[in-house]
């Protein structure tokens, strides 16, 4: 089990190293020069431009040799100093991201957990129940095949525009400033619901289908047939099957992290939800090196963390690795 964890850890460290390096490298080769972009917006006269350029180059750390920039970048990453946003000058990237992260987590974490739990329960329940299976299976396939943004657009159109039940943009109402009151909390939830729901639904379809197929595999497996021939109660067999089918579903969760992150980006864009997803799209449109780097870094950390948690969950659920933990193998 330590070997297992050690390997995983090595992979995470390597990934992190690689990702941070990519993060550093790529924006530096992007077309367009952000300092130039900003200065031309300022529309200053030539002398002033030179003064400002020097100032920005220094502020952004672009005035030292390239290897030192790389080292500085690592130092800065560990210090949590991600530079100053160009697009949101003079705001530090860290601050920009810190303001956006709660929104992203608020829709992502519940959507992932709830869809996984509900999807698995439901998939297991539907498997081999003819009526449910044949009506809801197509729906599940349809949901999981739906592009995230399209479901978002559909929900926004149906519940936001046509029925008018939910707002279709923003994190909270324009009539309020953030403060702690039931009214404000309700308002937050009201704006949160549709983006959450569209993420939830797409993922739910995926998990339900996955679980349903797994259960059918398991029910056809030799041990299940054997138990059935022994006359074991159907419930018991199903429980075994469910337990075994959970493992690949946990692995699946880890595999899906990247796609889910992508789904969050487009969903936030559809609903103009003020999270990391909307931020990264704006950062790209505005060629903001530092903001892109920061967002990417946080997505990587988030995905790595999620993977790590999934590993732990796997260790807890999987009897084989658990045995390994006790030193039986």
């Amino acid at each position: 089990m330590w070997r297992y964890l050690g390997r995983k850890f090595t992979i995470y460290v390597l990934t992190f190293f690689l990702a941070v390096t990519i993060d550093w490298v790529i924006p530096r080769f992007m077309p367009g020069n952000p300092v130039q972009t900003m200065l031309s917006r300022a529309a200053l006269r030539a002398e002033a431009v030179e003064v400002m350029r020097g100032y920005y180059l220094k502020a952004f750390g672009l005035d030292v040799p390239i290897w030192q920039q790389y080292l500085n970048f690592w130092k800065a990453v560990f210090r949590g100093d991600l530079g100053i946003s160009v697009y949101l000058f003079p705001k530090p990237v860290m601050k920009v991201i810190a303001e956006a992260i709660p929104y992203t987590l608020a829709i992502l974490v519940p959507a992932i957990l709830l869809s996984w739990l509900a999807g698995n329960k439901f998939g297991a329940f539907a498997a081999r129940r003819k009526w449910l299976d044949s009506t809801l299976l197509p729906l599940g396939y349809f949901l999981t095949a739906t592009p995230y943004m399209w479901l978002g657009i559909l929900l926004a159109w149906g519940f936001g525009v046509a029925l008018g039940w939910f707002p279709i943009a923003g994190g909270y109402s324009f009539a309020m400033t953030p403060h702690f009151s039931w009214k404000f909390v309700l308002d937050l939830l009201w704006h949160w619901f549709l983006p959450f729901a569209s993420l939830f639904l797409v993922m739910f379809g995926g998990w339900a289908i996955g679980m349903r197929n797994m259960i059918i595999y398991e029910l056809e497996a030799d041990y299940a047939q054997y138990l059935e021939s022994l006359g074991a109660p159907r419930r018991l067999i199903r429980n075994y099957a469910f337990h075994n089918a959970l493992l690949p579903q946990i692995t699946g969760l880890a595999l899906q992290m990247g796609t889910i992150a992508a789904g969050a980006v487009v969903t936030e864009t559809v609903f103009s939800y003020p999270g990391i997803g909307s931020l990264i799209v704006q950062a790209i449109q505005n060629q903001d090196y530092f903001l892109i780097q920061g967002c990417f870094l946080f997505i990587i950390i988030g995905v790595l963390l999620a993977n790590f948690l999934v590993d732990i969950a796997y260790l807890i659920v999987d009897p084989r690795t658990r045995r390994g933990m006790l030193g039986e193998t």
Partner: protein
Amino acid sequence: MKAQKNRTKNEFLYFAWRNKKLRIGIFILLFFILLAIVGPYLTPYDPWAYVGPPASGPSQKFWFGTTMFGQDVFSQFVHGLRPVFLVGAFGGGLATLIGTVIGFIAGYRGGWIDEILNTLTNVVLVIPTLALLLILAAYLGVRSFFIQAVFIGCTAWPWTARAVRAQTMSLKAREFVDLARISGMRATKIILTEIAPNMLSYLVMVFILQFGGAILNAATLDFIGLGPTRGISLGLMMQIALLWGALPLGMWWWFIPPGLTIALLVGALYITNVGLDEVFNPKLRGI
């Protein structure tokens, strides 16, 4: 020997035809493929030309209505369908190819090669591909469907590599592979003649899943403005519709068809996949 082969083939076709999921899936796919091929000839309009009254709903003249500028949505739709298949087939195919090759090598060779490839796979698996695609796509100022497909192919392979590796490892332990090895066959040949054919059905299914994944990935990229800078695709249609206020104006004919089609297409691919699975694995054929 030959007779037996024929029988398995017939048996396969028989079960394939009897499988409802497979029938539905393939029917939907064929329908859209046909539409992508003949569609552009069904409409007299150029997808970008201003041909009708702006923002009008479906009518006899404009089957899917018109955009904010009076462009024909139907002709954008059928023209946009082609790149979907293109990116899906090419991107999905590339991802399958890379994943399969890496999976074969890692699984068959084992040892330190496996160790390295496995680590690589795991690293690429964990790096959020969208973030990479975002940055790469933004890096290239002018982008084409082909480049998009290459991007997707190069980032979507890891799970395939993992799965193929596991399959290869289990096949490697089988007698006929041992036999081939003892008879002095080269590794490449063993993989190609002994292992790959035994996994063919599996690889077909992998390709189908990759196909669907590539379509979804491409739509995502198009939607956030990192799609091709020329041409039209279903994802671009959704992006433009949203940008131009189709939502508050209630111009559903503009954003429903592209998304619905992607969902139907990818759904059909998934269902086909399950259908194939049932055909290949008799146990799953069910009640």
